[in-house]
Each structure stands twice: as C-alpha cells, then as structure tokens.
C-alpha cells in the first residue's frame, strides 16, 4: 500500500475514478463481477481474508474449525458487530447470506459457484455458524475471502433484490449513501465500525469522511482528471501513464496483480487447427510475447510463464516452454503438414488457410493488451498464421464463445487460490451453462487432469494440495493449451495526497479503510 508519512488526519473526501464498467447492482451477490468487487470492498466484509503471504486470516469470523472428514466447517463470528442498519451480525445473518446467494432469484454466478459444495448451513449458537458440505472443499476458505461472498444485513436482503442493489447494507468501514446512475456512488464513513480484517493498520472507524466513487470510462480523461487533481485515485491505469506518473512525484503507483489465473491466450483444442498439439506449440513459439510486453507495457508488467497469477504461491513458472523461436515454429508446422504457403504468405493445408479466429472483448481488454494481440498477430504472420482479430462487445463475445466460433481467446478469470485451475481446465467446464457461459476455453479434455483437479479440491493439507496443483499446471502447460502473457494487470494511480491506501490481498481491490488525506 501507499506509505503513511505522518499522523493520519480524520475527515476529508476522497474521489475515486473507476475505468471499469459501472455495476448494474452494488450487491456483489447479484451476478458477481470485478467492478462490483471494487466498490463493495468499501462497504461489505467477508468472513475471512487473506494476508499478503497468502495465509487466511480472521475478518468477520474470528476463528474457524474444519471437521476431520472435511464435510463441516464452523465459523465463530466476532462479537458486537452490527450492520450499518443496526441489524446484529449473527449466525442467522450468515445463513441468510448463503441462502441469498443460492436463491436463483438473486441471480448470483460467482458466489453461487463458489458455494457449489455447501449442502446446508446451521446455526450452532448465536455467533457460531456451521457449513455442511456435500464434499470436502479445499478451496472453501479462499472462496470465502472474496467480495462476492461478503456478508450483508439480512434486513437489507429482505428488502428485495432491486432495493438491495441500490444500497446494500454491510458491516464495512463505509456505507452507501447514494448512487447517481452513470455518475457516482457516494460512500460515507461508518461511524460505528468495529471489524477491520486482521492485517489492517488501525482499529475503529475509517479516517476518511466520504468517498466519491466515480465512473470514468475514458482512460485519457481519467488520467487527465488525476493530473488535474479532480480525482485522487484511478484504476485501470495505462502503461504509458504509469511510466509518466512514476517520473514525477505527484502521483504514486500501486501495482496489485489480481489473483487466480494469469492473463493468457487460450487455444481451442476442440477444433482444427489447434486440435493438433504441434500447431498449438508452433503458434506459441511463433509469438514474440517478450518484445511486445516490454514495448507496450514499458516495464509495468512482467512476462508470465504460468497458468496462475504470480500472486498465487502455487504458481508454476515454465519459461522453457514459452520462448519465442520462429525457426522451431516453422519446423513444427512443417511436421504438422502445414507445409505450403499461399500468395499472402500464410500456411495452407488441403487448400485451407491456417487461420486463427481470435475474438477480442473490447470491454475486458485494455488498449495495450489489444495492441499486444496485434503484435502477436504480426509476428505469427511470419510463421504463416493468419490471426483474425475481431473486436466485439461483451454480449457478442460471449455469443461467439458459446458457439465455439473461436480458435484463440483471452479471458480474464479472477478467483482467490489455485482452485481456479479446476474452473479453467476441468472437462466439466467445456459444457456451457444454460446461458452459454463456460470457462474451459482451451477445452482441455484430459481425464488425468480431471482426476488431479478432483483430488486437489478435496485436500486441505497445504503441501499435498500444492503438489497436486503443480502436476496439473505442468500437464496443461506442456500440452500447449495456453500462452501465458503476464499477470492480470491491476494498476492504481494515486495522488500523493493519499496516504494509507492499499489493495486487499484477496482479489486486489483497493481498500480505503486506512487511507487519509492531509488536512485542507
């Protein structure tokens, strides 16, 4: 986080400009995406959290136990915590939250999936709640750290989805005062705040009196606003602005890569040409990622050679597999039968061009990333790949994916812990949900991988779990199902007036509980 020089000052209004889409609902139970996580971190809290070493630490739950068979977890809640509407935090409240997440009417996706193995909940006592599982879940605690499973006031939830969406009620250091659509959410200090996570810098209410949470989709305007002092913090900072900011001393940079998967290009192994591992490897070898990353990100991102974010302790880096080697790529294609080239220089086989359909979601990729794809397109062309980049809005992009109309795709996935591997590479993830959504874009369909993932999910022993995930990663990486690029970028730029801000070690959302501004 940013360094706190001097004594914190109470009061003041912090202005935050988000480049992410404006949430359609401030309650992250509904749906469950990153923009919701960003803002809800300020007013909602989870049962547990994670520290910067990846250890689970207490938050609303002060302690927890796992039954020996791994099928029951008991969480003891902090005493004396109340939601901002006065409702006390108790076992019943947690139960209500779980029920809310699992209610189809809520329309939860992220939280709903994370609770897939929870069979039921029981109130052991007023402040002890028991989760009864259908299967052991090694990822349960990690899942519970996420903002999408934060605990909200049952009274609030009872108001109905629409009202709750407009102003969810939590236990956090701030509470939602108002939300002007298309413009801003105003958050004010929760004066009765008592429940900081274990790794917070102070106790008691937050220093800031107010946060104005704005939505400024245009990155140039966002940075200009920060420079002009009209906002104090921006997210989704562009590499060039980060470099520019780091040169001066009026803006500080907070780099907080997201957990879960790395940013990567997944190669669709279910259909030609990438059903041939040789072609997959050739594509990966033909792509000059290193040069692209260094020129486009100007040192703000480091190359990844892993399926997992570098934040994850279990991440396996395999630089040996992902080096740029055009000559090797040529050979691989030759041996895969793509020997001829057409007049434009693309490889052809049986009259078909070696075409790679690459739909790009404009909503999910920052411009630098789209430029990166363009550069990969240019280098892969030398080897003879015709990479067709098609920018799409989110709906069309999901539709294209659902129709299996892609060969390569880059999709972010944020989840705390290595359990993300199960979501991304388990063959169950190939079958689309009713909405057409699926996560296994590489369409890895390997029983060995499935078996390893299933085992890892039930194991809670850290060492054993890590070993299993290492095996999975190696298998996937060696199968050339994906081309890792870099960690999921998550850069905040803060005016140097802001002290004490940090990113949560859970999903790297910023928290302004410890933050303060100098007196006017």
């Amino acid at each position, binding site marked *: 986080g940013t360094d706190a020089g001097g004594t914190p000052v109470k009061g003041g209004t912090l202005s935050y*400009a988000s480049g992410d889409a404006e949430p359609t609902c401030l309650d992250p139970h509904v749906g469950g995406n990153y923009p919701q996580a960003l803002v809800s971190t300020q007013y909602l809290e989870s049962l547990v959290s994670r520290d910067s070493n990846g250890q689970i630490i207490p938050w609303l739950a002060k302690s927890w136990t796992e039954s020996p068979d791994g099928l029951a977890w008991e969480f003891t809640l902090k005493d004396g915590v109340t939601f901002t509407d006065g409702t006390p935090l108790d076992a019943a409240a947690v139960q209500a939250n779980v029920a809310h997440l699992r209610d*189809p009417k809520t*329309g939860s996706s992220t939280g709903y999936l994370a609770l897939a193995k929870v069979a039921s909940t029981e109130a052991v006592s007023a402040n002890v709640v028991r989760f009864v599982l259908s299967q052991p879940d090694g990822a349960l605690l990690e899942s519970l750290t996420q903002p999408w499973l934060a605990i909200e006031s049952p009274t609030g939830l009872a108001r109905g989805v629409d009202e709750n969406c407009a102003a969810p009620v939590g236990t956090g250091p701030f509470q939602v005062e108002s939300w*002007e659509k298309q413009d801003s959410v105003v958050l004010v200090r929760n004066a009765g705040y008592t429940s900081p996570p274990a790794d917070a810098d102070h106790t008691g209410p937050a220093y800031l009196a107010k946060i104005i949470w704005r939505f400024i989709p245009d990155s*140039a*305007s966002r940075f200009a606003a920060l420079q002009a002092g009209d906002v104090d913090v921006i997210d989704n900072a562009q590499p060039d602005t980060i470099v520019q900011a780091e040169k001066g001393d009026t803006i500080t940079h907070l780099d907080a890569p997201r957990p879960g998967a790395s940013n990567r290009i997944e190669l669709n192994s279910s259909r030609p040409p990438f059903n041939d591992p040789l072609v997959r490897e050739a594509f990966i070898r033909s792509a000059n990622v290193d040069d692209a990353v260094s020129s486009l990100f100007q040192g703000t991102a480091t190359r990844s050679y892993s399926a997992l974010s570098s934040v994850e302790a279990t991440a396996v880096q395999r630089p040996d597999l992902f080096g740029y080697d055009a000559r090797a790529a040529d050979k691989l294609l030759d041996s895969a039968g793509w020997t001829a080239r057409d007049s434009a220089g693309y490889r052809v086989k049986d009259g078909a061009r070696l075409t790679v359909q690459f739909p790009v979601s404009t909503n999910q990729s920052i411009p630098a990333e789209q430029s990166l794809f363009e550069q990969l397109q240019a280098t892969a062309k030398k080897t003879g790949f015709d990479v067709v980049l098609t920018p799409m809005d989110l*709906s069309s992009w999901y539709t294209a994916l659902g129709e299996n109309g892609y060969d390569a795709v880059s999709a972010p996935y944020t989840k705390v812990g290595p359990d993300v591997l199960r979501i991304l590479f388990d063959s169950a993830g190939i079958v689309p949900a009713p*909405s057409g959504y699926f996560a296994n874009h590489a369409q890895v369909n390997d029983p060995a991988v499935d078996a390893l993932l299933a085992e890892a999910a039930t194991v809670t022993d850290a060492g054993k779990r890590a070993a299993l995930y290492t095996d999975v990663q190696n298998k996937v990486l060696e199968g050339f199902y994906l081309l890792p690029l870099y960690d999921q970028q998550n850069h905040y730029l803060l005016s140097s007036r802001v002290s004490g801000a940090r990113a949560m070690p859970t999903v790297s959302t910023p928290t302004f509980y410890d933050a303060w501004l100098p007196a006017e």
Partner: protein
Amino acid sequence: MPGLLAARLAGAVFVLWAVATITFFAIRLIPGDPAEAILGGPGSQTSPEALAAVRARYGLDQPVVVQYLAQLGRLATGDLGRSYALRQDVAPLLVGQLGGTLLLAALALVVAWLFALVLATWSTRGGRFAWYLGSGLEIVAAALPHFWLATALIVLFSVWLGWLPPISTPGPAGLVLPVLTLAVPLAGFLGQIMRESLLTALESPFVLSARARGEGDRGVRWIHALRHASLPAISLSGWAFGSLISGAVVVETIFARPGLGRTMLNAVTVRDVPVVIGVVMIVAVGYILMTVLTDLAQWIADPRLRRR
C-alpha cells in the same frame, strides 16, 4: 388553427409510435438475450431456473407480438417500464439523466449561436482577409469530429494549461469543455448559414434604405441584418438538437458526464430494451417539441409567417 393543431398532434403520435416500433423490433434483432441482461449481463453463469423466473417476470416468454402490444400499451399509458440492467423504473431514471443532457445541449446551442454570431459579424465587416479566415474557420469547425476535438481540448486546457477539469465537476468549470466540444462544430454550421444570410441582408435594399436615413453600421447590423441572419439559423435548431444528442453520446462518455447519451450507449450494449426505447422516445419527443419550438420561434421572429 384547431385543425392544424390536431394534424400536428396526430403527426407527433404517429412518429412516436413508429419510433417505438422500429426500436422494439430492432432490439429484438440484436443477438443476445435480454433475460441475461437482467441477470447481471452477459457471461453471468445463471441457472436455468433463474432465467426462467426472469423471463416469466418480464413477460419475455410471451410471443413477440404479445410483448410488442404490451409494450405499446404501457407506452400509451406513459409507462416506460423498468430497466433490465439498472433495476429501476425507466421514467424516473431518464428524467434524472435528462437534466444533464438538456443543460449541456442548451448551453452548447447558446454558445454555438454566440460563436456563430460573433464570427459571422466579424467576418463580414473585416474585408477579404476576415472573410476567408471566417469561412475557413467555419468549414474546419464543422468538420471537427467531436471525439477529436474533445481530446484536443482536454490536452490543451486540462493537461497543458491546467485551467479546466477534464471531467464533469460540480461547479460550472466542469461544463466548459463538454459544452465547447459540442458547440464548436455546431457553430461552424450555424456560422456558415448566418454569414451567408447576414451578407444577403446587408446587401439588401432595405439596409441601403436604412443607411440612406442615416443609420450607422451598428444600427444596420443590430436592427436589421442580424434578425434576418438568424432566421435560417433558427429553422436549423431542430436539426441541431438531433446532432447535439448524437454528440452527447461521445461527449458524455469522454467527460464522464451522466446523461441520456451515455445511458443510451450503455443500454444498447447490454440490450436493456426498456431503457433504449425510453431514450428513443424521449429524444423523439424532444425532436418534435424542438420542431414546434423552432416553428414558434420563426413565427415570432418572422412576422411574414403570421399573416395567414
């Protein structure tokens, strides 16, 4: 007069009906499922039950014709329905957004008028050089894309000079750049029109007559010429409204201003049918009102129209 009014009203109702119909079916054609939009947008891993529940609740499981008729029925009673994505009634939502956009558009129209007037007046009195500079400026201004101009203004006034905020801020300062962005190209168009008609007026015999009575240059301009020059520009203001709304989409996005334009862009991309139809209806009503207003303004400004 009552006959004219009735015809006008019937015309307005027809336009509104057609606009609503076109929009309704056009949105149907867009790939993507509104039920998903309701459940937190595309990519949400919703359960089939949830989808079914939502479809039933919003009547999306009905045949299209039924939905269409239901939509028309609601519109006829002034009910714009409920936003899928924003979980809010459309009418109050849009009313909230309307203010910002109207303010922006109105200010831009005023500023554009001022610019155009000043430029037209100046370029018709300063001789050849002023003429060429004036007409050149107008043609260039009219050719400026909003997004490029906005960027240039931000770089100049916010980044380099640091005078004005690059985003909307509570005070009037935050309005300056968005208004300029919208006003400059419009001023280019209005200016061209005004200069032409100003010249026509200045060369007309009635101005010569006024001079022969001893009227000075200023009197001639203010008492005679500008009024004539403003007539064609007034008749353009209905068109200007439409172009300002189009421009607002870009300007509101760049300057992070809440408003109809931005709402519309968001709503269209997430297939939020009620909001899109709502915005389109409001814009159509605005357009119709604007044409009535321009007619009225012309009627006031031009007594020749009053005679019949």
